[in-house]
Every structure is written in C-alpha cells, then in structure tokens.
C-alpha cells in the first residue's frame, strides 16, 4: 500500500474501524434478541408461556408450606405465586440464606413441561441489596393486597 497517498490510508483505516464497529453493533443486536433472558411473574408465565428450554427469569412469592425436599436431600420443589397464578419450581443446589417461605425470590432457569427448572435462586441478601425486579414486584403485590382487603 506504500503507493497510496497518506490521506487514503487514513480513510481505509477509518472504514475498517467503522465496519468493525457497525458489525459489532449488529451482531450484538441480533444476539440480544435471542439470548436476553426475559423476566416473568407467574401470571405472565401461565398466560404467555415462553418456549420450552429458553432461559428466562421468574419472580414471585414462595408460597407458604410449599417447600418440599426430595430424598436426595439437595433438590427442592416449591410453588412461586403472585396472587393470580402459581408455578411449580424445582431447584437443585444450596439455597440462598434468605430463601424462606412467604418471601420473594427471583429464579433463573427454564420451563420443562409444566415445571420451572431453576439453575439459580436470587433472594434478598440484606436491606441494601434487593434484586431490582423483586423490589418492584413486592411493591406491586403490596398494592394488590391492599386492594384485595378493601
């Protein structure tokens, strides 16, 4: 390329950089459409179920009296509800410390048949760290409870 004028080399470099950046942007946009995990509350999940096996997040309340441990000692079944719908959830692993019945949870996983299989549970860590979705969700639920008792 030594024969080309300096001005042209600058343009060529600029073009390469632009093509790469635009390419990165398009690739990102395409991948995000397929790979982003959408957030559901139980009533959404029941009304518009996602494809089987697609990674999603489910947020709701752990129903009282619903946590059951399987004989292997490390798999639990429980129900996540939002007052309108109930979704059975299965999780294998060590539960977070603040995972208790009657409290909020965000589960990361996928639908397998009618069961939500969770890879990971996010519960409230402490007052200062609350999963964002959960905070909104409990607000909404508080309102709902108020509305129902009226």
């Amino acid at each position, binding site marked *: 390329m030594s024969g080309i004028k300096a001005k042209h080399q600058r343009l060529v*470099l600029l073009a390469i950089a632009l093509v790469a*950046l635009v390419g990165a942007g398009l690739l990102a946009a395409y991948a995000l459409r397929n*790979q982003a995990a959408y957030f559901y509350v139980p009533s959404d999940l029941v009304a518009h179920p996602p494809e089987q096996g697609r990674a999603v997040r489910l947020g709701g309340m752990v129903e009282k009296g619903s946590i059951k441990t399987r004989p292997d000692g490390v798999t639990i079944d429980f129900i996540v509800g939002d007052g309108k719908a109930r979704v059975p959830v299965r999780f294998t692993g060590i539960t977070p410390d603040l995972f208790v019945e009657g409290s909020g949870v965000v589960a990361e996983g996928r639908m397998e048949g009618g069961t939500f299989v969770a890879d990971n549970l996010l519960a409230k860590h402490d007052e200062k760290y609350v999963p964002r979705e959960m905070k909104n969700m409990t607000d909404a639920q508080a309102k709902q409870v108020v509305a129902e008792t009226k």
Partner: protein
Amino acid sequence: MIAELGLAVLWMAAALAVLQLAAGIIALRPKGEHLAGVVRPLAVMQGVLVAFAFLALVTLFLETDLSVKLVAENSHSAKPFIFKLAGTWGNHEGSMLLWVTIMGLAGGFVALIEKRLREDTLVATLAGQAFVSLGFYAFLLLSSNPFERLPEPAPDGNGLNPLLQDIGLAFHPPTLYVGYVGLSIAFSFAIGALVTRDVGPAFARAMRPWVLGAWIFLTLGITAGSYWAYYTLGWGGWWFWDPVENASLMPWLAATALLHSCSVLASRNALRAWTVMLGVIAFSMSMVGTFLVRSGILTSVHAFAVDPERGSFILALLAIYIGGALTLFGVRAATVTEGARFSFVSREASLVFNNVMLCGILGIVLVGTLYPLLTEAFGTKVSVGPPYFNPVSAIFAIPMLLVLAVGPLLRWRNDKAGRVTMPFAIAALIMAAVFLIAEMVAPGIHLLPALGLAIASGLFFASLLPLKGRNLRRTPLPVWGMVIAHLGIAVALFGMASDSAFSTEKLAAMTVGDTQNVGPWQVKLESIDPVAGPNWTALQATLSARYAGGAPITLEPQARVFASPPGTRTESALKTRWNGQLYSVLGEEGEDGRWQMRFWWKPFVPMIWYGGVLIALGGVLALLGRVAADVKRLRAEGKIAYRRMRQGR
C-alpha cells in the same frame, strides 16, 4: 474535630483545583505565560491536601468515631482492624473520596516528575485534570459529604455488610480504583495534546508510562476481584458478567487498546488521532461504569444506596466530560496531521487489528450491559448473561488472538508475510493437535472451551518466539514485558477453557462419616462443629479429602453468621494442587439431619489468576524498562549540559 478538619481541607483542595484550572487557562493565552509556573505547584498542593482529607476519614474509621454519620452507618467498634480500615472505602461516600484522592495524587505526581512533555501541553493537561477533578469534588461536597456529623452520636455502628468483610476487600477496591481513576491522566493528556495541537511521538512516549501504570493496577484489580468473587460467593464461578465486572472490564479493554496504539504512535508516528480518541474513551468507560453501579439503575452487589439524585449528578458529569472531550476531539481531529504510512503486512497493521477487535469486544460488552436499561424504559425486563457475552465476544477475541500469535514477529512499516508463515504454521499445528486431543479426551466438549484450549496452547508457543535469536541478557525489558504479558493471556485463557471444559460438580446431602467422589477426589465428612471469630459465629465442616487414593488433606468450609449487621456468608474451603483446585461449600442442615455439601474439582482453574498476574508483571517489566531508559537519557543530557557549562566558563 478531625471530621471538621477533613472537610475544611477537602474544600481547600477543591479551591486549589479551581485555581489550577484558571491558572492553566490563563497561562495558555497570549501574554499569560507568566502564570505557567504556578500550575505545577498548585497540582502538587492539591494532591497533598486531598490525601490529607482522605487520611482524616481513615482516622475516623480507625477510631470508630460514631458521631460521624458515615462511620456509624458502615462501621462497628467490634470489627477487626483491617475491616475498620477497609470500611473507609466500602461505602459510597468513602469510595468517592478515594476517587478524588487518586485523581489529585495522580495529577500531583505528573506535575512533580513529568519532564518530557512540552511545557504548554503539560499545563493544559494539568488544567484538564483539575477540570475533571472539580466535577467529582462538587459531587462529593454537595451530595455525598463523607464527614457529615450526626445530631446525636450513635450508640454503636451498623457494621459492614458481611459479604464485604473479607481480606479481599481491603485490597481489591483500592487497586481497581488506582487503575480506574489513573486513566483520568490519559484523558487529561489527550485533552492537553488536543488543546495545544501537540499530538506526536513525544506526547505518546510521555503518556505511555502513565497509561501502563494505570493498566497494571486495573489488571491486578480485575484479577483480584475475580478471585474474590470466586471464593466468597460460593458459586464456583469466577466471572458472572455482572454489570460491575463489566464496568471494570470496559476501561481495561480500552486501556489495552490505548497501550498498543501508544506504542505505534511512539515508535512510528502513526495512529495519531486514534490514540487521542482512545485516551478519551478509556476514562469515559471508567465514568460510565461508575454511573452504572453508583446510580442504582442496575442490580448489583456493588450498588450501595440507591439514590436518584446521585445518579443524575453523575449522569450530568458524564455528559459534560465525555461530551466536552468528544466535541473538542471533533473540532481538533482534523488539525491532527496524518501520521506515517504502513503496509497491510506490518507491526502497525497487526496492532490496528488488535485495536479494532478490542474496541469490538468493548462495544459488545457495553451494549450487553446497557441493553437491560434500554428495554426497561419500554417496560420489558430482561437480563443479559453468559449465553450472550461468551459467544459474541469470542467472535472478536478469536481472530485477535490468532493475529497476536504473529503480530509481535512482524517488522515495523513493511514486512513480507512469508517471514512469519513458518511460525504461524507451527502455532496452527499445535492448535489443531490440542483441539483434536480435547475432542478425544472429553467427547462432547463444547466448541468454545475446545477452541480456547487450542488457541491458548498455540499462543503459549507463539508468544515466546519474539525471544528467538535474541541474546536473552541483552533483550530490553519492554520486550520481556510484552512476551510475559502475552504468555499471561495464553495461561489465563487455558485456565478459563479448562474450567468450563473439565470441571466436575457434586452436590450431595451427607451425614457425618459419608464419603463422596468428586473427579479424582474422595471426600469424607468427618464432623460438623460450631466455631467463633471476632464478630461472627459459624458452623464448620471438617472434611478429609484424598486425591487419587493419596494421603488425606483437611478442608474446613464454614457457614458464618454475623451479628452486626445481621447477615450470613458461606466461607468456602479450597485445596490447590498443581493441576487444579478442589472447592467445597457447606450448605444447610436438612430436616432429616443430613448436611448439604457442594464440591467442585476444577482442573487448572488457578491458571486464570496466574495468567492475570503474569499480564500485570509484563506491564511492570515494560514500565521499568521505559523508566530506566528515561533516567539514563536524563542523566546523559545532564552530563552534556554540565560539560557545556564548564566549557562555557
């Protein structure tokens, strides 16, 4: 008293920054040169004062002065010394004070020792540094005063989040911060050079050590942070693509690109406008990261208090600094003259490729991090995780790593591809062989881990090649630095790929006396006992583990309960061998009296962090080499000047 003194000193430092900016602006105007001499001393004084303010806050935390709001909210009299110290920066206000302290010290340091840069460019640089600092001083003094007193002293403090009470916290944030905020120097250099139209090799040579310094700290900070997350979170993962991790990765990617383009500018006077642009981008990424994690708009363990006012303040700062710098760049870029030409097969071309790919990865990470915010504005909540980040960034990382295998062998300006065909063919052969072996050893291995193992092995060989034919004793330190940093990339990549390809996990409910097999290990639960620490109590499992039937070793994972603030944390126990790590976590007791235990055998996983340390070590060697060369040159110049002086007499 100390709190008031600290606040007063902080205001004085801010006032000095105003003077530094004003003096710098006047000095750059015609007839203002007489003020140029005061900019350096102002910058040094500002650095000293802000460091003093920071020490005042450290003192308050060490004394646990509970009349200070920040101390009462984040510390506790019964905390061990090291966590009282770390508590200083384990909160929003303290960490912002650390931010301006590093900015002030960095500016003062440049003012004190930078001798190579043209004087007017240096004045503009220091004025730029003062301008950026001022925004953060305003933020600190107006909306996040760390020295605020309580009307009534608190009876005792709230304590520090248990998750943060770890020795890692004492070192990880300050290290990362030095790197993060140290990049402000690159930003100010870029602005200074644009203002005085002084973009050239001398400018790049002056900027390079500062970028290198910040980059070393950033590398160490990310490596330490990754290891900290790995052993404290108890999930066995070392990178989660959490917004905060991304916030530290993005400046690192930009700074890595900047380092490489700096070397092109310094050696060959090419990539002039591009280098300046990267200087702006690198620190902009630091600020974007701060905005993301501090404003509370993203979920993260690192988001302290969610406060919309603070979020808007940082957003305004972002708009002013990034917008301002980009405008300046837009106006002045055309006046930055075209650099030297080079051919498509040359060291420059390979470095351009490296830069474009690094920026591609940066874009991918940025888009993935911001996407949840974007969709939430339209009412859809999503989260973006490894299924997006891993494959998409690999599309850019793989070609970059392949070019990395031969780039350092190419000559500057113009080279013949034939000269590097042989080394490349050998590296490619190694890669193909390792790929096939991986497929045979672990049938059904995923594509990315297999490619990772293959590329890492080929790269390991190729990164040693620049030493071929050299006298090792006479090889300059910067060359050693490059070779070792590139080796570090290969080592870290091997660890990452090996972890995702070969890790075995075992989750089991065990009673005392039970044995489980995890990969080549046999782990027996010997007992569960209560233990106590200075401000926590815990249940501790005693495990005896045998590797392939060998002598047993003991592991003691704990589940800790903290009193103030109330909280729990799992304390994993690790055993490192040369070929991997055994990782154990104690869970809860089930209704039937069995204990949940989780184990991982992770072959070669420590190589990830060894690699990170190697990369940083490469940076240190390069920095030493550059500084030594400078000292030598200055000495020689001094001698010549001395001789002239004597002859003149």
